[in-house]
């Protein structure tokens, strides 16, 4: 697990996972979208508490290796200010067969998103900005709103 304040280069990171025994490579990249929940986004700012983000990320990767018979796995997350189209997070996994590469890559990104001390602030085209809520919290709130509407 690494945190970086400069551009993520997926190709170089992928090359670190090369292995003559690997038949499958799955790579995931999270990119900055130009909109979120209906608002036009200008750029994003990532705050990362590095010591614990790295510690927790290493735990997630170790869990993936214990759960799935993979060869290598790595994750790199950006910090700082990112523009539309930039890569915010990269996950790469290699394994003998594709099943486990897909499963482990998915596991790592899902866990990274909900467990690592990382926050993002969206700067909107209209000028204001706001901290983005976590996926699970958003779902939770949606559920609550839905209930209210139903009542």
């Amino acid at each position: 697990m690494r945190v970086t304040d400069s551009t993520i280069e997926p190709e170089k990171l992928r090359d670190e996972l090369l292995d003559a025994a690997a038949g499958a490579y799955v790579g995931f990249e999270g990119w900055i979208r130009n909109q979120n929940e209906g608002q036009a986004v200008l750029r994003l700012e990532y705050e990362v508490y590095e010591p614990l983000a790295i510690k927790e990320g290493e735990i997630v990767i170790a869990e993936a290796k214990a759960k799935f018979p993979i060869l290598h796995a790595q994750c790199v997350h950006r910090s700082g200010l990112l523009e539309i189209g930039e890569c915010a997070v990269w996950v790469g996994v290699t394994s003998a067969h594709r099943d486990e590469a897909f499963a482990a890559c998915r596991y790592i990104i899902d866990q990274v998103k909900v467990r690592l001390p990382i926050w993002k602030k969206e700067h909107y085209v209209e000028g204001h900005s706001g901290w983005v809520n976590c996926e699970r919290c958003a779902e939770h709130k949606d559920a609550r709103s839905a209930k209210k509407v139903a009542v």
Partner: protein
Amino acid sequence: MKKNITVRYFAGFREHAGLGEEDLSIDAATASDVYEQLKHRHGSSEPQGHCKVAINDEMADWNSPINDGDTVLLFPPVAGG
């Protein structure tokens, strides 16, 4: 009994508190007590379960005990990726 601790605020919590870190003397048995007593500082209306806490750079539970000299890190809901 009051304990001397350092509290660190992150992201939205830090912005609301207007500072990233402060030393406090607080009557708190658990991390949960710290969170509840500092609501006026971090300003969060989030359920505690949406937030996370670390003590001395180790992820902790809300019912983890607080000791004199601890550094308590209060994390608003995370949103990596």
